């Protein structure tokens, strides 16, 4: 069995592969030539600031407690009272679509932006016809969360099942 597989592997390995174009090599070379941005990020700056603060506190142990002491209260300034609010009638809200089922199959999602580890996008709920704003987290499932027009979901299902369509959302 193993020999059969060895022979078959060599047959597979002997097949000619589709080769990438020279344009790819040029693009990669160009990317490699352009130096990456310096590794001087916020993390480094924060670390240095923290160590400088520690050194300062060690050198001047009283400074930290003095710094924490409350300063004398500043003189109060006279502020005129704000004008009374006029009650405005609230604009009529568009009619809410009916809530989708708690767990549903997402067929169409449009990426909007990346917010930290969360992907914010818009999904279309089948048999519902409406688009909803969603927050997609990896390896979770999609679950109904809250309304009204822009509905937020947390994802409780593998994100691979969410289909992204590159249509700009206005």
């Amino acid at each position, binding site marked *: 069995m193993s020999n059969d597989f060895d022979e078959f592997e060599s047959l597979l390995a002997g097949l000619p*592969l589709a080769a990438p174009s020279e344009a790819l090599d040029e693009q990669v070379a160009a990317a490699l030539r352009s130096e990456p941005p310096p590794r001087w990020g916020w993390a480094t700056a924060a670390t240095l600031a923290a160590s400088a603060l520690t050194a300062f506190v060690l050198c001047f142990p009283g400074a930290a407690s003095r710094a924490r002491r409350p300063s004398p209260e500043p003189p109060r300034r006279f502020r005129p009272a704000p004008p009374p609010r006029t009650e405005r009638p609230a604009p009529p809200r568009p009619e809410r679509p009916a809530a989708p089922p708690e767990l549903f199959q997402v067929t169409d999602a449009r990426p909007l932006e990346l917010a930290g580890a969360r992907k914010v996008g818009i999904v279309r709920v089948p048999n519902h016809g409406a688009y909803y704003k969603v927050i997609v987290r990896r390896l979770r499932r999609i679950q109904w969360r809250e309304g009204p027009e822009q509905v937020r979901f947390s994802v409780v299902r593998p994100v691979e099942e969410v*289909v992204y369509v590159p249509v700009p959302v206005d």
Partner: protein
Amino acid sequence: MTADLEELYRRHRQGFFTLALAVTGRRDLAEDAVQEAIVRLLRSQKTPADPVPYAFTAVRNAARDLLRKHRDRSEQDRERAGIFARAPGEPAAALGAQERETGVRAAIRALPADQAETLVLRIYAGLSFQQIATTLNEPLSTVSSRYRRTLGRLKGEVEKYV
């Protein structure tokens, strides 16, 4: 880092492209994915113990991202590009071998994504099972058994053509 990455690309250029092509099914997307992965690796702050599976993971992720973005177009293009070069006309004497090769191509094209990726990483990228497991973020035993299952399936399919 840049020199290391350049060397990594030089050594695994074909493997990167074949993996991206297996994922996306389109040459243009595959090339974009490789380029995108290289850019991501350049910007990456991590220094992995083994850069090879790390780089292949970056290629796979970039290919998947691009596939998601272009899924509607990819579905319209019914003909998925295979990972193999178009075979030139073979002489009549090698007709059996040609049929066998045609069978292999068709069988590989019909493989599910996880099996195709495992096969590509093992045979065409030359990764060890451990490296494949790291690339796919799966247990070693899963990868190993899937590879054997894939070979068995392919062999069975190919024998139909011969």
